[in-house]
């Protein structure tokens, strides 16, 4: 393994965002002609590190060396010029354009600086596809391709700009087993061509299979870095999580009441075959916090959306307080005591241009309405009451909600949900995109709510969080519940349950 030269290295890399230090003095070596695996929990700093390498973000301190000489990327174009390509987790492609157009978007081969040279574009695309051993016609519209093929196109796009270093951020999260095999084949191929690959994934068995070198990040620091030989899952988990654990202890002794919420065989077919949510049955008791852990694309968000009547194609039954929920619309389900705190605050949780007060009361205007007259005074009083109760820091409830920080916005979303007096609270990644202080406050709030007899079902990809906060942990993978554990379970078992085994179940 000594024949892998170091292509890029970071020395003393520090990245500071307002309020947080995402990287705390990181030393990272990227070896050419090998797969450099990067692993760590959400928020450990993986993405930040990769964005620094790809020129999307720049280091606050420290330096980047490329083949021994110091470089400074002001933007992504600088990094591309140095032969660094990145494939983001979310594909950045144009479904309405063809494969060739997608690959050459922004750097089209032109004649006389104006006319796109279609033929050379198609020829180059064909050459790239041959290099990747893919049989994709350059003129195919992108939306005719499967997700796995789209991923290949994204890789081809990076290669078309002569990428010598290729960063793949969770490339398999949306792929089927067969497509993963194709991708691994492509990676082998690129490796033999001397391309240095950085591979980020949560799927540990996959990492061990594909990686040559492994680097583990935790809280912005590197906690392990070595060649892959002899690395096993327990070693990775130890390096990822460490000995400490973040505590959000219960203030009072757990006392669960009767069952408040039950889902029975909830199923959602996936477009293009298979199931996004596959016969999920679970129940939550009064005062209980149930954590739903899993990887990206495990179907957790889709399950919550099914419960909140977002998918007309879904099947299965839902019970609140023992009564079947028959309402097919959101308003009806809210009235039955279900409340959802969506994953994407900006898109689903809030109306950004409306005032904080108006956002807080949007789901429960009925409380202040007599006939069709809205009692604004009562509304304002109730909104202020919730602002105080949830300790939302605001200057005025009349300011647009977009002026708040992430943590305070999240509290507004929680306030909106609580104002409907729910019996079961569904929270999708409640700590995403908020700083540590606000996180702790949100968790304390969750504890308090459970103490008042609310049932809480929360989805998270953060292992610490799920272990520290839940009274019971459920694990989902490939749309199914794959494990159920009591509080205080060994992290390794939870991770193992969350890792879908491609080799054993090719049908999945």
């Amino acid at each position, binding site marked *: 393994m000594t024949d892998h030269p170091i292509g890029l290295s970071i020395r003393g890399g520090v990245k500071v965002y307002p309020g947080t230090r995402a990287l705390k003095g990181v030393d990272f070596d990227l070896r050419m002609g090998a797969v450099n695996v990067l692993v760590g929990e959400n928020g450990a700093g993986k993405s930040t590190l990769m964005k620094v390498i790809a020129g999307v973000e720049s280091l606050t301190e420290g330096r980047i060396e490329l083949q021994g000489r110091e470089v400074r990327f002001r933007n992504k174009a600088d990094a591309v010029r140095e032969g660094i390509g990145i494939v983001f987790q979310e594909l950045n492609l144009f479904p309405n354009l063809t494969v060739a157009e997608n690959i050459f978007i922004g750097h089209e081969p032109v004649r006389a600086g104006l006319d796109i040279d279609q033929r050379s574009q198609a020829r180059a695309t064909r050459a790239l596809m041959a290099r990747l051993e893919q049989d994709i016609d350059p003129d195919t519209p992108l939306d005719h391709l499967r997700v796995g093929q789209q991923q290949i196109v994204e890789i081809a796009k990076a290669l078309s700009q002569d990428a010598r270093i290729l960063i793949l951020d969770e490339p398999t999260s949306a792929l089927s087993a067969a497509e993963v095999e194709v991708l691994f084949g492509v990676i082998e191929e690129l490796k033999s061509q001397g391309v240095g690959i950085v591979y980020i994934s949560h799927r540990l068995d996959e990492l061990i299979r594909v990686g040559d070198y492994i680097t583990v990040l935790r809280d912005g620091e590197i906690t392990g870095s070595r060649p892959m030989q002899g690395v096993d899952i327990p070693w990775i988990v130890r390096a990822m999580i460490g000995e400490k654990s973040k505590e959000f202890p219960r203030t009072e002794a757990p006392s669960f009441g009767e069952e408040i919420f039950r889902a029975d065989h909830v199923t959602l077919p996936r477009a293009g075959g298979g199931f996004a949510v596959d016969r999920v049955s679970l129940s939550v008791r009064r005062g209980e916090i149930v954590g739903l852990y899993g990887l990206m694309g495990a179907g957790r968000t889709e399950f919550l959306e099914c419960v*909140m009547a*977002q998918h007309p194609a879904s099947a299965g039954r839902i019970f609140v307080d023992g009564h079947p929920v028959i309402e097919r*619309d*959101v*308003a009806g389900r*809210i*009235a039955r005591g279900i409340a*959802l705190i*969506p994953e994407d605050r900006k*898109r*689903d*949780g*809030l*109306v*950004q*241009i*409306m005032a904080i007060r*108006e956002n807080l009361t*949007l*789901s429960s*205007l*009925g409380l202040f*309405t007599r006939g*069709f*007259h*809205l009692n*604004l005074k009562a509304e304002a009083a109730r909104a202020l009451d919730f602002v105080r109760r949830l300790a939302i*820091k*605001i*200057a*005025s409830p009349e*300011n*647009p909600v*977009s*002026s*708040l*920080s992430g943590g*305070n916005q999240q509290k507004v979303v929680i306030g*909106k949900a609580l104002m*409907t007096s729910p019996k079961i609270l569904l929270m999708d990644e409640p700590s995403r995109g908020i700083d540590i202080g606000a996180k702790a406050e949100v968790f304390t709030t969750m504890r308090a709510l459970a103490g008042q007899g609310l049932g809480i079902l929360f989805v998270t990809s953060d292992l610490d969080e799920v272990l520290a906060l839940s009274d019971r942990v459920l694990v989902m993978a490939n749309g199914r519940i794959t494990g159920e554990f009591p509080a205080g379970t060994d992290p390794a078992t939870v991770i193992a349950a969350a890792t879908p085994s491609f080799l054993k179940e090719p049908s999945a």
Partner: protein
Amino acid sequence: MTTRQQAAASTPQNLLLLALRLRTFVALILVLAYFSFMAPNFLTGANAVIVTKHVALNALLAIGMTFVIITGGIDLSVGSIVGLCAMVAGWLVLNGVDTGLGYTIWFNTYEIVALTLAVGIGVGFVNGLLITRLNVAPFIATLGTLYIARGAALLSSGGRTFPNLGGSEEFGTTSFPLIGTASVLGLPVMVWLLVVVALAAHYVSRRTPLGRHIYAVGGNERGAALSGVKVNRVKLFVYMFSGFCAALVGIIIASQLQAAHPATGETFELNAIAAAVLGGTSMSGGRGRVLGTIIGAFVIGILSDGLIMMGVSSFWQTVIKGVVIVLAVVIDQAQSRLQARVALAQEASANR
């Protein structure tokens, strides 16, 4: 201490923000002052009533349009609905409804008004169904109904005018011409109608859950739906309300002229959109106020009447109108940027 400093530091900014917020009002005062000075007879009671009558029709349409635009949509069909409803009213006054069984049903004025309004609301309902159930983009759906309604209006008379809608004693329709011509307490009936519709619309937008939902749908449709807002119902309502306003205008015009012409209301939709935008309604949805729209309609109306009184060529009037609208939107953008900045600063200082 810090808060006081903060307040002191941002006072000029707040003043500027206030001025920008009231810009339509400021524009109105400026236009009024200018013409009172330049056109000798402008500031007389009689002229005020005339101008108001001109403005009332556009303002009525613009109120309906405001709701539609707040939800993030657009209603291009209002002008055609005006024409169609004028023809429907004219037909009912002149011909009644032939049942095909050898006798004709005649309606009195109240019934005619009710039926015509129902036609307008019905076209709005079709718009709403196309947009909510069949997922047609509002621009296209209402463009389609624009042509359909106009075509139907032309077909109803073969392109001719229904003349002499004076009504008849026998069927109780002599009151029909009064809608557009009579006055109550010194104000024309149509102005009273505007006052009633405007107050009702203002009330709905500010003090009812429906109004709040209209803003929420325009601000973030997905978010509103996940909060339990019945998005489709809200959209149906706004297009039906817009149809209602257009029908009202159609009736008023037919009554005022005592004749119904199938080309009535052509390009009215554009004036209505202009008034709404001038009044601060954001075309991307979520923002706008009924009172702002009415002021916007007055600015446009006063501008064109005043320019006529000054003897400015109508070609120039068109140019000036366009400039005013573009200017309004540019200022609107500046205002929302400033507003966001002020709110951000406030929140930042609150979290210090």
